[in-house]
């Protein structure tokens, strides 16, 4: 990753005929950066990605790559490449022909084409699948091929629209790790769309949190986790307890920022409701007069707490938001 800006979305608005869409989106993506658009379903992530790919026209604003506007170009003329959630591959072509299609259109000679196809397949660990048809492969394998097909075209910006969300949890995890590795090795610029905050945290150099057609917050995973700017972001990223403070505001506190001791006192007192063992830490749910509160404690304290125990809570760090 470096400091040059590869892609800019400038005050972009896209409204569909029914009034839905995205408004006033500003976004810069640096060369070699992996930026994630994160938000609940329907918040406009796909809309942004498809305007960049050229599949929908914008209502207002501009999109530039290397400083040049691309909004008048059709998809086939844009230096972007897109991977969708599913149905990416052409079912009547073999893996080889799927990969070769774009190379042929670029009039690349046969021997170089074959070389690039082989490279692409080994990048996604799919050597030997040349003769298979998409219908003969699992969903994960198809997505690997789809990613390879995009990669070998060497796009300026790679666009990925929830590419792993149709896959099993285990394969999804593997694919994330591989994608991240390929992306840093090749230093490619990627915009990745997901509604899964965990996925976004794992993958991203930078996360763009979206809500209802606009950007709520942009920043590194750390920045967003440590300093959520709004009640929405605080609730969407990571675990967070929200407590009414009685003045129309809400106190927010992360489970790991709560210290618990046995007995009375503290900022808040409560009763242990459940204790759950989660490997090297414990998750406890406490009944308090401000509602249920979730806390994490070290597993070496496991024997200290039991259901029904009276406990005292102290907060190391809190946030305050206007009630939504």
């Amino acid at each position, binding site marked *: 990753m470096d400091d040059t800006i590869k892609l800019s979305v400038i005050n972009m608005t896209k409204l569909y005929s029914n009034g839905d869409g995205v408004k006033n989106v500003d976004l810069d993506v640096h060369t070699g950066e992996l930026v994630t658009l994160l938000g609940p379903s329907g918040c406009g992530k796909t809309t942004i990605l498809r305007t960049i790919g050229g599949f929908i026209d914008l209502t207002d604003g501009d999109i530039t790559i290397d400083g040049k506007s691309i909004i008048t170009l059709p998809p086939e003329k844009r230096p972007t490449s897109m991977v969708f959630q599913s*149905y*990416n*591959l*052409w079912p009547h072509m073999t893996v080889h022909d799927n990969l070769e299609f774009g190379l042929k*259109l*670029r009039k690349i000679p046969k021997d170089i084409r074959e070389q690039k196809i082989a490279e692409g397949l080994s990048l996604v660990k799919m050597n030997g699948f040349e003769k298979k048809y998409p219908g003969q492969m699992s969903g994960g394998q198809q997505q690997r091929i789809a990613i390879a*097909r995009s990669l070998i075209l060497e796009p300026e910006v790679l666009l990925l629209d929830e590419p792993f969300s149709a896959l099993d949890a285990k394969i999804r995890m593997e694919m994330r790790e591989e994608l991240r590795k390929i992306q840093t090795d090749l230093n490619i610029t990627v915009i990745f769309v997901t509604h899964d905050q965990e996925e976004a945290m794992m993958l991203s150099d930078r996360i763009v949190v979206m809500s209802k057609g606009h950007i709520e917050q942009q920043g590194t995973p750390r920045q967003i986790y440590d300093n959520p700017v709004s009640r929405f972001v605080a609730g969407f990223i990571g675990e967070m307890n929200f407590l009414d403070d009685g003045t129309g505001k809400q106190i927010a506190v992360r489970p790991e920022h709560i210290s618990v001791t046995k007995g009375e006192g503290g900022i808040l007192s409560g009763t242990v409701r459940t204790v759950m063992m989660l490997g090297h830490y414990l998750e406890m749910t406490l009944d308090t007069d401000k509602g249920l509160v979730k806390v994490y404690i070290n597993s070496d304290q496991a024997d200290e707490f039991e259901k029904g125990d009276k406990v005292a809570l102290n907060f190391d760090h809190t946030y305050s938001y206007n009630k939504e």
Partner: protein
Amino acid sequence: MEENKTANDTMQTERTVNPYSAKAVRRALGRKRTGELLILFVFMLFFYGPLIHAFMLAFANVYQAGDIIPSEWGFHWWSYILKQQNIPRSILNSFLFAFCSTGLSMLICIPAAYVLARFKFKGRKLIMFSFLIGNAFPKIGMYTAIGIIYYKIGLMGTFFGVLLIHMLGTTMEMIWLPAGSFRSVPKHQEEAARDAGAGPVRTFFSVTLPIAWPGIVVAAMHAFIGSLGESVGTLLVGLPQWRTMMTEMYGVILDFPATAGAVFAIIIVVPNMLLLWIMRKYVSADTMAKGFKMG
């Protein structure tokens, strides 16, 4: 201990009395199977009976109406039919019309079907529906009306006139199924082609058309068979210049015994069977179902 025993006992009794026991179910199913087989048999007889009868008649030299089996077997009527002067020519004509009408309607209808499948515009459903209405009209009334127009513009008895009549049927076949096939091509696959660098036209020919192809082939086969079977229209506007197998068949049935008609029927059925056989890999319930959605 005591409790355990009672539980065991209950289970034992249940096994013999329970109406849902494996034995009872099997017995009931057996009875049902027999019924199903009987229904299937009656249906098969109803469906294939006339076919078998016609097949038998075709190889009868002498057959008295009412008999079950012909009194003399042989190829008498085959040689008779094949010696008729008009018949080879009429077979040729049938295929000529079928090829031309199917081919032309493919050229016209495939783009139209694509437009109907992919673009939302006012009156789209109405247009789709109107192709069905065409089938609802009594054909003979339509042909009479067409005949009047043909007389006025001099199309009566011409190749082009008959071809148009055949295309009336084939175009209808070539709209619905192909539109359904185009609709079932996932949009993402077309977008992926654009994304890879293909323009709209190349995308259509490299991605959309090949994926929709099975449905189109089935439609073309229907159209072809439909054209081979067209009779009334050809009879009204084609005769005497243009004769097809079907129009000749009318003559044969009117002028000769049933055995001659049977021979002719088999001659007509053979190409249809062949076509179905060749196209069998395309004909699936799935392709058919896709075609009959309004969408």
